[in-house]
Structures are given as structure tokens and as C-alpha cells.
């Protein structure tokens, strides 16, 4: 029974495909999965916008949307109708073709990453041998889309926003990849399915999630910080800093194209969150061995919602960073810490399994962290700022 419930979508797909001629079955199978993924995550996007507005409102002692539908639940629908019916304005000086392609490419690139994310047991679109690499490769397409949007609008603000966004995404891609490499080092595989399978085993009732190891915990935190920056979320939302460059690279977009940017950004955020789940939080695996009867996809979405809530929580808490702070964090803190974490993972790999490697690896991560934190804090002295380019 639990088996059937767990595999219900897989079985349903096979049952549906049984009606089709064998020649087009592989194609239809892929199509069905793609449509399902797009629908599910687009719905999740709608729910998240509502959740975010409600959550941020409560954190600021407001109510949040409460007019459309019960508890404002139909607000995403209203927003969608509004953005669909709005006039689509393209600046006269814009590069029309590129201006049109940018949001399309962004959404396409953000959806591409889902091809390798295991949503449940046996529920992955393709089990690529180089899955994690594929994920980061398509992630880099988003930078291109951002640049296209910023450049083609022919607006100073959008160009500034795009430059900021690209500089930030490139800078944080390095710690993002380096933070995930520890997992690859441990599993010896780039395949997401293999990575989750390694974590879906239990000692007693406790799972073997990588986040429960010293290097895994540090890697998870570093990955999440880099993912926040990568998806341009607060406090790293300089590219769209409303107070100085209004909306950044998509300032010249309106109507449905603007909605597409919004969608692409959220879908990208879900993808990186799902990647964090896959790498560190055991993917679809249940947190305790006695809870394995709950269908695997439910665990995946529960974890995803938890991470999204954490994103919203952080957004409601932290103020936006300054550009130099952002870059300093990336190169002075994130990069050294990920490298040290890599060292810790290597030591873990070569030390004999036992209790001894826990304190050793924890010390390898924690001591440099404390030293680095002290060093960075001491270095911070206030002085007159000098500008290199504006004088």
C-alpha cells in the first residue's frame, strides 16, 4: 500500500502511456513529466508569492493580502490576471529582438535545472551522469538572460542593474559550486539520484543526511548563502535595489514580460533550494526511519517549503548589503570557507570511520571560521571613502 502510494505518479504515468503506441512512448513520457513539473512548480510559485506577502506582512505586524478570496488566497490569480491584461510597453530605443528574448530565455533556463532534480523515489526526469554539473551549467544561462534584459532596454538603470546582477552571480557561483563539491567528493558521483540514494539510509532511526556531518553543515550554510545571492534574494538583492536603481535589469519591462521575470526568479530560487535539499538534506528521504511510509515526494515538498519559508524569514529580517560588502563577503569569507570546508571533507574521507573524525573535522571548519570572523571584524574600521573612478 505505502509502496503504491509512494509510486502513484510513476504508476499513473505508465498506465497512461500504455494507451499510446510504443513508437511515441518515450517522447510522450518526457512530455508528460515536463508538463507535470512545469505545472507543479508554477503552482508552487503562485503559493509562494502569497506566502511571502503574508509572511512579510506578519513580520512587519501587518495583515498581508486579505481581500481576494479567503485569507487573500486568490491574490496570485488576481496578480496574474492583472499582469496579463496590462499594456506591454517596449522602449522605443530598445533592441526589440533581444528585449523579447530575455524573459523567455530566463524562464526557460530556470526550468531547465529541474531535469535532474529527484522529486521523489524514481521521480526524476533524467538521471544524468553529470547531473550536478548540468545543473550549474544551465544556471549560468540565467546570467546571459539577465544581461540581455539589462542591455537591450537601453536604460541606464537596467544596465547598471544587469552589471550588478552579473557581477554578483559570477562571484557567488564560485562558492556555490565549491560548497556543493564536498558532497560530490563524499559520494564520488555527480548524479543527483546517486547522491540522494546515499543519504536515504538510516542508522537506527537517524538518516545519513550530509547536513548532519561537520562539513555537510558548513557546506549547507555556505550553499544557502551563495544560493540566496545567486537568486538575487534579499539581503543580496542589490541588482533590483528599489531605492537606488528602482528595479534593476527589468525596469523597462511591463505586463506579462515582467511577470515572466518574476516567475523565472522564483523558479530559479526553487531550483537552487531543491538542489540544496538534494545535496545536503537527503532529497526525498524521510527524516526518521519510522517515517518512511510517508510518500517521498511529500517529504521533498515539505523540505522545499521549509527552505522557502527560511528565505522569506531572512528577507523580512536583513537589510540590503552594499556592493563592496557583497563582494568582500564573496571573496574574503565565502571562498576561503568553502576551500577549508573542502579540506575538512577530504580529511573526513581519509580518516577511519569512528568518533574521532567528528571533532577533527568540526575543528577544521570551526577554528578558521572563528579566526576569519575575528579578522574580518577587526579589519572593519571606518574611514573616508575614496573613489577610484568618479574623480
Amino acid at each position, binding site marked *: 500500500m505505502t509502496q503504491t502510494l509512494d509510486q502513484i505518479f510513476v504508476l499513473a504515468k505508465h498506465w497512461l502511456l500504455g494507451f499510446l503506441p510504443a513508437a511515441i512512448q518515450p517522447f510522450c513520457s518526457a512530455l508528460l513529466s515536463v508538463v507535470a513539473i512545469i505545472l507543479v512548480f508554477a503552482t508552487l510559485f503562485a503559493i509562494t508569492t502569497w506566502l511571502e506577502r503574508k509572511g512579510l506582512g*506578519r*513580520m512587519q*505586524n*501587518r495583515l498581508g493580502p486579505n481581500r481576494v478570496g479567503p485569507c487573500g488566497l486568490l491574490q496570485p490569480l488576481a496578480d496574474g490576471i492583472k499582469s496579463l491584461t496590462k499594456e506591454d510597453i517596449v522602449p522605443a530605443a530598445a533592441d526589440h529582438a533581444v528585449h523579447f528574448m530575455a524573459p523567455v530565455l530566463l524562464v526557460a533556463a530556470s526550468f531547465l535545472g529541474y531535469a535532474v532534480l529527484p522529486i521523489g523515489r524514481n521521480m526524476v526526469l533524467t538521471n544524468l551522469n553529470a547531473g550536478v554539473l548540468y545543473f550549474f551549467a544551465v544556471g549560468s544561462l540565467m546570467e546571459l538572460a539577465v544581461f540581455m534584459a539589462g542591455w537591450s532596454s537601453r536604460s541606464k538603470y537596467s544596465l547598471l542593474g544587469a552589471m550588478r546582477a552579473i557581477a554578483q552571480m559570477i562571484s557567488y557561483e564560485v562558492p556555490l559550486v565549491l560548497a556543493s563539491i564536498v558532497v560530490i567528493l563524499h559520494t564520488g558521483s555527480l548524479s543527483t539520484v546517486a547522491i540522494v540514494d546515499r543519504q536515504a539510509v538510516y542508522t537506527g532511526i537517524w538518516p545519513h543526511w550530509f547536513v548532519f556531518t561537520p562539513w555537510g553543515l558548513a557546506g549547507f550554510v555556505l550553499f544557502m548563502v551563495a544560493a540566496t545571492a545567486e537568486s538575487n534574494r534579499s539581503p543580496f538583492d542589490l541588482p533590483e535595489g528599489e531605492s537606488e536603481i528602482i528595479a534593476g535589469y527589468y525596469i523597462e519591462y511591463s505586463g506579462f514580460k515582467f511577470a515572466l521575470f518574476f516567475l523565472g526568479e522564483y523558479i530559479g530560487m526553487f531550483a537552487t533550494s531543491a538542489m540544496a535539499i538534494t545535496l545536503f538534506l537527503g532529497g526525498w528521504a524521510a527524516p526518521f526511519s519510522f517515517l518512511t511510509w510517508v510518500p517521498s515526494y511529500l517529504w521533498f515538498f515539505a523540505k522545499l517549503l521549509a527552505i522557502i519559508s527560511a528565505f522569506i*524569514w*531572512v528577507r523580512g*529580517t536583513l537589510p540590503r548589503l552594499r556592493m563592496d560588502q557583497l563582494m568582500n563577503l564573496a571573496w574574503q569569507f565565502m571562498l576561503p570557507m568553502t576551500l577549508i570546508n573542502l579540506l575538512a571533507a577530504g580529511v573526513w574521507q581519509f580518516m577511519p570511520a569512528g568518533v574521532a573524525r567528528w571533532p577533527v573535522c568540526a575543528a577544521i571548519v570551526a577554528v578558521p571560521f572563528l579566526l*576569519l570572523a575575528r579578522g*574580518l571584524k577587526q579589519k572593519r574600521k571606518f574611514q573616508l571613502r575614496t573613489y577610484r573612478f568618479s574623480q
Partner: protein
Amino acid sequence: MLGDGILKGLAETARNFFGSYVSRDRLTTIQYPEQRDPQIEAARSFPFLVFDGADWQQGLRCVSCQICEKECPPKCIFIEKSKDKKPDAVGKPQFYPVRFDIDISVCMSCQICVEVCPFDAIKMDVDYDLSTDDRFGGLLLDRQRLAKSNEHYNKIHPTEAAAVDAALAEERAKAKAAAEAKASAAAKAATEAKAAAVANPAPAPQPAAGESQ
């Protein structure tokens, strides 16, 4: 330690998040169209024209002196002076505005028109539900839409209106006294004239416009 500030901040927002569900008085939101905050007396939005009495056309205090039109910094007031004259509150014949338009899409609520008006004819309103789907017609207020009674003025700015009314009443009393003195003088002269000539007393001219307050 690096990051403890972040944790403190997260704790604070979490406290607010859950607190907003527990204690109602944290939430300051007002369900706007249904609920409203009590009006602040000093609030002001856009100018309106005060009229006395019941009939707005009769009672407009404005004499179309056009000072406000000249003083208005964004030039949002348009006044057309009448050709004929009409007696005002104290019975003095005055011009009146045939057209008095304020474009509140241009008006910047500076209140200079109110400051310069010598007749206390233009005052600031508190109405803020002004949104309209007709951008030009709906925001270009004409005489009729601008005219609001003195009672309304008393309601929205009680203290200020009382002072204005007192001043006006004093002025009118003075004017009336002067008029009466003049009338009695005229009557006296008339009686003297009558005594001198035929016996039929002519009534002194009375103010035509209705006096309120």
C-alpha cells in the same frame, strides 16, 4: 562571533511574526474603505469654496477678486468674473465667479490661495477619496463641485471655522451697524424731509442676501 547579529535579527522577526497572531493590538492595519481613522483636525487636501446659507449659488463668499488665481504657484485655478454684480452677505454689490475651476491633478495643496483670500471664501478640504477613472473631467473641479457649505467647514475644521465665523460675524455686525446707522440717519433725514414735506416714510434698503449666523 560572525553571524550572531543575524541570529538576533531573525529572532526579532520571528517574535513579531508570532506576536502578530497572538496579540491583536500589534496589528495597526485598518480595513480602509470600511473602517477609517478619525479625521485629524489639521488635515488638508485640496481647496474648496465656502458658501453661506442653503443655496450655493447665492451664498458663495467668493467675489472673484482673482488673487488666488494669481498667487497659485502651479496655476491650477481658473476664474471667470461675472459681468453683473450681486449683493453679498452684507448687502454690498459684488462680482461673483461665473466660472471657478481648480484642477486638482495640478494642485499641490500649498494652501497659498487660502492664505491670500481676503474674504475667507476658499478653504482646505479634508476629502481624500478623490480617485476617478476620468483623468481630465473627474479631476477638474468646477464651481458646483467646489462649493461646500459653511456647516461642512465647521465640521472638518471646527476651531478654525469658529474663529473665521467670529471674525466674519463681527465684520458683518459692524457693517450692519453702519448700515443701520446710515439707515437711521437716512430715516431721520427722511422724517425731517417728511416733516418738511409729505408724510410717507421710505423704508431703508435692507440687505437682500440671507444672513446666516
